[in-house]
């Protein structure tokens, strides 16, 4: 019985990831998904995401993660987030460069709901950060964080660096503390050698055994982890593909569970949080 399938019993992590889209207003140097303004959107329709969220509740998932691409390029995202967050807490990954006054006004409806915005910032040095993430990125992010917090939203900071010195990290931590973001809400993770980073020979190589099992749904199938549905030369990688079937959600969830039964213990040292 599908209703008897529970995430905990299947041994899966509690968060279900949804790739809302693959296009982005930025073209970051290490992007796993080769995202940029002109790429294929590969979008999940909001109705599908809502249906998946409903199934996720039934299966015992405890949180939703929304990533891309840049999710806030989708005009319906604030409305969708409101509906998702009434089902489960939601973590949204964003580059935080699109938060105009108009968009922030539309996000007012999220006040009081369990929505966390995780914004990317790779250095406290604007020039270094902008080299990786694009012109004026640093200034836009620094401007956006207080405005998001003013909406009552929890803001987390994600830093993607493989070569960060203690001094540079200390400088960045000082910055996020000044912005009201505590150490518990700052994630530093290495560049993963997939997507654009792989083409440039950057980052560390990871395999399934390095990645915690976090079921991840895209328009092209269900993957082992949000690090799975990466793109190289315009083609989506399939080495971490679980199933093409994404609904009912119990199909990829069961397939993940079968894989886990035969899997070695997960080192779990690389997390998208």
């Amino acid at each position, binding site marked *: 019985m599908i209703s008897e399938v529970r995430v905990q019993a299947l041994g899966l992590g509690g968060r279900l990831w949804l790739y809302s889209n693959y296009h982005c207003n930025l073209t970051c140097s290490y992007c796993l998904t080769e995202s940029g303004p002109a790429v294929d959107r590969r979008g999940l329709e909001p109705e599908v995401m809502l249906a998946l969220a409903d199934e996720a509740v039934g299966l015992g998932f405890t949180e939703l993660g929304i990533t891309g691409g840049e999710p806030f390029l989708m005009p319906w995202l604030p409305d969708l987030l409101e509906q998702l967050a009434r089902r489960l807490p939601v973590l949204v990954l964003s580059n935080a460069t699109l938060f105009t006054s108009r968009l922030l006004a539309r996000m007012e409806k999220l006040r009081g709901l369990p929505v966390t915005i995780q914004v990317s910032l790779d250095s406290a040095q604007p020039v270094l950060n902008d080299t990786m993430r694009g012109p004026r990125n640093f200034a836009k992010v620094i401007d956006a964080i207080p405005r998001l917090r003013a909406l009552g939203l929890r803001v987390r900071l994600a830093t993607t660096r493989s070569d960060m010195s203690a001094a540079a990290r200390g400088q960045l931590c000082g910055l996020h503390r000044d912005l009201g973001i505590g150490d518990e809400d700052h994630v530093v993770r290495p560049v993963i050698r997939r997507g654009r980073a792989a083409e440039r020979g950057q980052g560390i190589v990871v395999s399934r055994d390095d990645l915690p099992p976090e079921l991840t749904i895209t328009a092209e199938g269900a993957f*082992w982890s949000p690090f799975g549905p990466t793109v190289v030369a315009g083609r989506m990688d399939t*080495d971490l*593909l*679980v*199933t*093409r079937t994404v609904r009912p959600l119990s199909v990829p969830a069961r*397939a993940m569970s*079968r894989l886990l039964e035969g899997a070695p213990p997960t080192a779990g040292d690389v997390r998208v949080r």
Partner: protein
Amino acid sequence: MARVTLVGAQQAPLLARPYFEGGDPGPIAAALAQVPELIQAGMGFIGAVYGPGSVPARQREIVILRTSARHGCRYCVAVHTRAAARAGLTAAEIDELQGAAPGSDWSQPDRALVEFSDRMSTDPARAVDALGSHFQEHQVVELVTLAAATIFLNRFATALSLPLP
């Protein structure tokens, strides 16, 4: 050239990886790997149907080769021309199975299998009648499954233009 990407070992999805561990799994598995939830069931079924059974290998290859020839599947004919030879069919017999009708020196059970294969393609409701009393009931089921699976693979390989081995 195949009509779809034949998945390679580097891009093999998690559920498909066991099929790549021994090297190139062949174009059927490499195509099915595009849909990993199909590969286990699909290859399991194909392996069971095409593996050893109660019908001798020679007779099984008669059905497979004749059916594949009738359906114009270049891939399956090429693969099973070799398999038929390994199962003991002569070069002349293999040629005849790809022609209009078998010669007079075929045994009655083998001629029945040729007729059965032809009817599976054109008149399946009367196909079992062609087997007469040469086969036990469970062998009839096995032969029908074999011919039906072969027709499936004929269509699969032809539609996807699987490369000849």
